[in-house]
């Protein structure tokens, strides 16, 4: 199987030295299709492959069975033994040429049509609702790992990898962007699926602005920038299990979101605020967001 992998998938180019290791574009010599290869080196101890790898990869395989349109296909998994102590697990994903970042950069000067944004958002939410209903959080949503096919189909990529990687590559210096992180993560409080909704909210705003909404340089700076827009939350909304106190931040009132995202329509702005809610418990869920008036609105399409 070791040689099987390298024979079947012929590397073509290095695409993005992602935070967690190199990703290769390769050609599947059997089908001629392009694929994206992501490898992780796993330390195998006395007990063989670590539980976490076994579980996470099994989870990705399980999700694959649903063949969801807004989730990137996992086409194959290979495991190669490198030594007694190390096994390389390679995940073979379908390759999509363009991510949302590039897609936004290539948009016409006038920006994306409101109907296009609504469609992208709906697809994004469908993908998220699917992941969340399967107990998978993405945890690192950003325009770079949202893929957009040439037919305009949105596909979430890199979900669930965060955990595989973080288990085994704790020592690798990792640079992860702060811009899409929700307050609870910045505050190092406990978090769950609402993290992805926050990130999606930031991305929603970015589709109109074509530049990120909150560009902080450190955790505290990022949080400060967020509070300048949504205002300082009340004392009882501030998580209790965190070291950073609410008193660190000036008492700010929320500002109209349309000051920052002028092109957004009324219903879009309402949904955006539901997504950029400080308290993760009050933040809208992906399933509820899909039923939001914004997505029922036909005028956006015209």
């Amino acid at each position, binding site marked *: 199987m070791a040689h099987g992998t390298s024979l079947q998938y012929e590397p073509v180019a290095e695409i993005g030295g992602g935070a967690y290791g190199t990703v290769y574009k390769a050609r599947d010599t059997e089908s001629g299709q392009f694929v994206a290869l992501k490898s992780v080196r796993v330390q195998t101890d006395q*007990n063989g492959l670590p539980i976490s790898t076994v579980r996470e990869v099994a989870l990705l395989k399980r999700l694959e069975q649903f063949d969801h349109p807004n989730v990137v296909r996992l086409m194959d998994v*290979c495991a190669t033994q490198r030594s007694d102590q190390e096994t390389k697990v390679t995940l073979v994903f379908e390759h999509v040429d363009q991510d949302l970042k590039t897609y936004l950069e290539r948009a016409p000067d006038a920006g994306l049509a409101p109907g296009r944004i609504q469609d992208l958002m709906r697809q994004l939410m469908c993908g998220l609702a699917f992941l969340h209903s399967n107990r998978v959080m993405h945890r690192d949503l950003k325009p770079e790992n949202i893929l957009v096919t040439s037919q305009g189909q949105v596909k979430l990529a890199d979900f669930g990898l965060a955990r595989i990687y973080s288990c085994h590559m704790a020592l690798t210096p990792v640079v992860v962007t702060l811009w899409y992180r929700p307050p609870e993560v910045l505050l190092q409080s406990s978090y*769950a699926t609402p993290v992805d909704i926050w990130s999606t909210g930031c991305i929603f705003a970015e589709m109109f602005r074509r530049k990120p909404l909150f560009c902080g340089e450190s955790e505290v700076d990022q949080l400060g920038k967020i509070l300048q827009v949504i205002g300082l939350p009340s004392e009882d909304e501030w998580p209790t299990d965190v070291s950073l106190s609410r008193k660190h931040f000036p008492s700010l009132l929320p500002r109209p979101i349309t000051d920052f995202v002028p092109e957004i329509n009324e219903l879009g702005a309402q949904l955006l605020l539901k997504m950029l809610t400080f308290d993760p418990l009050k933040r809208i869920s992906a399933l509820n967001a899909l039923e939001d008036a914004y997505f029922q609105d036909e005028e956006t399409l015209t």
Partner: protein
Amino acid sequence: MARTGFCDSKPLLDLHKKADERRAPLRSWYACGTIDCWQPVEVEESRMVPVKMEPVHRWERRLSAQTNESIIMGFNEDRLTDTAADGCVEENMLLYPQLQGFPSLQALVPSLLRHEVETALEKLDLIWDRTFAWDMFLDMMRTQAINTLPNADLPRDFTDATRSVLVDWLIQVHEILHFQEETLYLAINLLNRSLHVIKVTTVNLQLLGMVCLFLAAKKEECLLPEVSGLCYLMDHTYTKPQLLRMERKVLLVLKFDLSYCPPLHFLLLLASIARCSAKVVWMARYLLELSLLEGQCVVFLPLQLAGSVLCLSRQILQEPPTPEGEAAWCLASSVHVGSETAVLRIMHTLAGAAAKAHTRETCATFIKFSSPETMYVSVHPGLKNIAALLGVCT
């Protein structure tokens, strides 16, 4: 109960729960599938920018194809509605008088079932958030077929007898290691699937079985045994490197796909909806575990196995019926309506197996279920009478 069997990773912190405390409304069957949650309504799609969404349609087709196939197991939504509506609506109305304001029976019955399923999953602690309960149930129904085998063929040189000796041994090892029941069902499923794709000699059969149990434990258990301990349990017939090599081999041929919805979950779900007594459930669990030893049972869907063992268990124990109990049973049975042929075949096979269990060499399960904790179900006098049991099934 292990909580991991449903979804393969550790549960997320449930921040949603508080926010979504309101229960999902009891909507009609047609409006409550996951499909409409996942994908935009098609009419709207076509009205939008001329975007071709080929994969969406492909996906949709596949879903419906699965649903059609699943007529065999009775999970055809229309059919479920009809049959349930024919059979037991009135009694259910008695059970749930507060729901009588509903517009039509067609809409009412699936809502009832949905409500029951959600409550049962919650009670069994199989879900983390009730909002997703129905989706998870639909997933269970849809995906149960994926890792069920198409045929009961075994590789050359192997017989059903060899297989059941191995399974019986694994049941003992499983008991020694104090694993969850889900782990056993997963292990045997992995074994069945591996036997179809790996070339293994009789000499290595035991190693393969142990590796399947080990992998199942890695997926389901919190505490893992040492590999050296496993080698000890195999009398050091195999070395640690051999075991680890086999582990990699199995993972590769199964492509890391360890998902399996154990029939036990369906059994507990149905039993909870049907308000079965503890004794009926224990008897059904015994029969279900016996099915692991039967080579012909590998082709049946988890739901069919679960439905059959519950039916058989009720017939063996012959508890006096109550109107509420019968109505609840009727509702629970509507989940696997359409599987009658399969159910009868399984009941027949297992009735035979249960009657002979005490005389067989492979009697780990028989012994396990003769304990006071399991309410002595395996030595129940009702099981001894083969003729009557088989009569039950014809």
